[in-house]
């Protein structure tokens, strides 16, 4: 049946959305190694490995784009 959530929808105005300027992040992405903290460039389809120490967990870095929220 109707599975939709009937929550209050604030009027569109793009609160919390900075419309995509995705172009800034192009090419390979850089991640942080969880072990040694070094920046690791991983291309799509590559195994998740730190290039320095071979660690198996990488953290994604915080986005460089402006993130703006409505203070409510």
């Amino acid at each position, binding site marked *: 049946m*109707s599975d939709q959530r009937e929550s209050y929808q604030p009027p569109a105005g793009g609160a919390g959305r900075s419309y995509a300027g995705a172009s800034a992040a192009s090419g390979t992405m850089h991640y942080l190694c969880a072990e040694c903290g070094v920046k690791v460039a991983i291309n799509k389809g590559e195994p998740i490995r730190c290039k320095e120490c071979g660690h198996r967990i990488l953290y*994604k870095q915080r986005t460089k784009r402006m993130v703006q929220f409505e203070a409510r």
Partner: protein
Amino acid sequence: MATKKSSVAFNTLERENLFRNPPKDKSAYPALLAAVQPHIDSFNAITVDGGLLDLAREDIGIKSVFDGTNEKGSLGNKLSLRVDKIYIGKPRLSDHRDKTSLRREIFPSECRERHITYRGKLTVKLGLRINDGPWISQDRELGSIPVMVRSNRCHLENLAPYDLVEHKEESEELGGYFIVNGIEKLIRLLIVARRNHPMAIVRPSFAGRGKSYTQYGVQIRCVRPDQTSQTNVLHYLNDGNVTFRFSWRKNEYLIPVVMILKALIETNDREIFDGLLAAKDRENTFLTDRVELLLRTYKGYQLYTKKETLQHLGEKFRIVMGVASDMSDVDVGKEFLRKIVLVHLQDPRDKFRMMLFMIRKLYALVEGSCTQDNPDAVQHQEVLLGGFLYGMIIKERVEEYLESIVKEVRREVRRTTAFDFSNKEQRTRIFAKVNENIGSALEYFMSTGNLSSPSGLDLQQVSGFTVVAEKINFYRFISHFRMVHRGSFFAQLKTTTVRKLLPESWGFLCPVHTPDGSPCGLLNHLAHKCRITTTISDTSSIRKTLASLGVVSPATASLPSSATMCIQLDGCIIGWCSPKLARVVADTLRYWKVEGSHDIPLDLEIGYIPESRGGQYPGIYIFSQQARMIRPVKYLPLDKEDQIGPFEQPYMSVAVTPPEVVPGESTHVEFDPTNILSIIANMTPFSDFNQSPRNMYQCQMGKQAMGTPGTALRHRSDNKMYRLQTGQTPVVRSPLYNEYGLDNFPNGMNAIVAVISYTGYDMDDAMIMNKSAHERGFGHGTIYKTEKLGWAEEKRRGGPSSNNLFGFINQEEIEEQIDSIHEMGESTDEEKLLKKKAYQSLGIKQEWLETVDLDGLPKIGQLVKAGDAVAVYHEVPKESESRSRFPQNKVFTYKGSEDAYIEEVRLLGVEGNDNKPMQQISVKYRIPRSPNIGDKFSSRHGQKGVLSQKWPTVDMPFTESGMQPDIIINPHAFPSRMTIGMFVESLAGKAGALHGMAQDSTPFRFDEHHTAADYFGHQLKMAGYNYHGNEPMYSGITGEELHADIYIGLVYYQRLRHMVNDKYQVRTTGKISDLTHQPIKGRKKGGGIRVGEMERDSLLAHGTAFLLQDRLLNCSDYTQTWVCRECGSFLSTTPSIKKIGFESQVRCRRCAKPAAGFKAEGMVWEDGNGGQFVGGSNTTVIAVPYVLKYLDVELAAMGIAMKFNIAP
């Protein structure tokens, strides 16, 4: 004992320093580490050299199998198998699977972050021998088994706080748990019967065992050195006979006890008679009659010598024991005695004596000269530690492994005629066929808590052995390790006897810290000073010492006439003495024990049970082994610490406080009366002022508070984590708060609380919060949720495995075009459509790029709402397939209903595979939860309440100094609940805040002569406040002074994790059940709330019939349906077929007659099958509940028709 007595002081600088510079030598909070020590020690005990696994390996012994190659009759070559060593390795990367990593160790934090299991390799060194040749050893790897954190198989063992922080752990990481699939699990402590002590039991169910069985029995739980146990029971029969019962591989067996006696040693009836009856018992005809009968009835077996008896036993139990076929019956008999009868003893002579003792005790029980032992009292209980249970399971699995090799060899021998043991290839083929993965079995055990075991391990339950160590807050976490469960078997019992709080528990189990409801009294917590022994104390000097005290050794005389008191050491009879001497022996031993002389260990338990008329069976029972509860008290004669156990405690005189000491009677005094409370119960301030159930409630609520689970939250990935942003240290606390370092994990906030009925919004346990306090951050919390995204589990066997990748399939294309597409205008509908098409041609949607980066992973810091994309992935196109028109990108969406922020994104390498691309990511969401109307709060006195209003500060009442409360609660919360402790805390907190000091809230510190009200009142007076804590207050609305003085002070408030946002449930329409068309239940599914019978009754009583109809019909399963007015049936109505000039109508098939002859064109109607009918047109539509139709169908299926009278 801690050398430095901790105080209640805030120690702000010291704490700050500890935070900045974690100690590099040892933890600053040894008490905290001691709290989990039993878990770690028990695990270490299995793995150390000569530990339990080594003992288990010896107990398993040699398994052998024959190839039957030689001529008929002989067995052929013999292959013997044994285990030479069991190794458990530390968690490491496997050397041949991973070649790139520098560091080979796997640390616990990595397992948490990757959602994998912290496990080490299990290796078994197998010994093989052919006939009488030399033993050849061979290493077999049996998978990886979960390893306890901070045990001796963990890399964090003995690390200092500084190093722990370096390894992404809490500075006070405790360990004691396992990490299974990234979840922290621990093995529950379980109460089991005290080992090696025969217990007199009266159980009506014993009588149901068979003909002439009675309710009397003596039960002993014998524990082998490797901590596995075997329970033996002696049953008393009506005629005076005694049967020996045991259970082996879940089957029960009964043997006449004399047969066991005769098999154990070369004996005769005279010796048994003498052993059972002391000189003075000879006059007791009750006993002599029974012993005579016991010996007489056994004559029927015609087994006289030890050899004959063993042969008989061996013959009967050969199959059951599963021994090698070349063993003689006598040897099988011996093996039977070794493995089943009184397994805690090795020497048959000792077993014989113990068996005689048990028979004597049984007769005494029947005669009434001794009472039954209470198996529910902690006196006859011990604690099964997680590590020991783990060791038992490993032992059983390894034994099973050996047996499966034997079985496989046997099968191979039967299949192929020429099977050669010495051939290495044939041997490896055997190994390949045997299931060698013990590791996964243990992982299964840890993750489900289910025990799958052929023997049942002598336990009463098969599931519920493990629990998740939830880190809701630190109180919750730490109490998991102090929790002792009685066993899930007892949860089903209808009687409440097992749940009772018995005086024996004093000092061992906390009387307040047990949940209310179904687990009440079954789930207890250890008192904070109670310790559990994990090693055997050195008892080598006991026998010598006893001899010097004049105790008669059992070796010299079987049962000396004057010596009636038995002295046992761990279930082995080591001497006899007279009752008079027994007292001296017990007292002297204790004195020497505390003094530390004569090599008597301090944690020895000397249970002296004096002779009494019909009391507990007398004797001195000394216990030195593992798994005993033990606690420190002060021994008065020496003014030194003594360690006492629950067996001896009931017969000792322990004063609670020094003034209670009775000269000449008290031997001990408690160090502190608060020693009887658990860690959590000790955190309730002034708990002695409260009504006791309130303290129980607080123990529950303290564990549900939104607090600080830890400081290493960044490196954790729990499914759900609660965090209080503005936690504070309580002003009012006990010194134990500092001793356990709870300042590292604040659990609430200090609040100014006024007890006043102010707005009406504080009725019925509601509370009003100052809006400005809320805005300053009071009670602000956060929920962290972690979600694992990926395909690791989607491995299908056989079928084509789908291969997915994170990211966009056409990343380059998107990168090129995305900017230009973004810039496309969308002012007109046409343009919008064009833009949408452009996105579509890239196989993406515009919204995706708002939350997802071009690597297909979510942006950190991004706000996501329900349904937003959090990750993009695609299938890797197979080379054979041609590319479809549009590139296919798919998304994982955020499924929560609340807005969340992306907190962390982890890219996880594939476990155990070097070069596979990323298959999994872990996304942590942050959901801010500021206090909301409807959220639950509580003080530390079981006074919970719901926030009802955030009241503007200007309208809050104020005192003469201008203070305004943070929280207002209603005075009606107190009279019936009698939580005086909360008043005292309010008083103490106020005085503490005014003077800038922490207040000691340890219970039992005040009395009638020195009252808390005076003590804190005086402090208030000194600060210039009202002595009683009341203050005149002014209405914030009118500015008028209130008529009464208001009680206002400072109370520590907890924010509980029950929040409206997780609870609210509304529905107008929504999902309905397919079967009944009624609304489904369940908040998650958007269901409704049931209007039950009581609700219905109240609507009825109010006469609100339409409301009732609305709830029960219109908003539920209202349906309109056709019914035949004539025959009153739902089921016979059917729509007729539409024809030209003939609209479809609903007709009754049952009332219609088949059309025959000539009828008017308009009269005839046709059903779906082409049948032609006339009549049956008297149908109508009515409104009924849908379930009624369903009922009709169900009844029709049973051949019952329902008829409805339709009117008008």
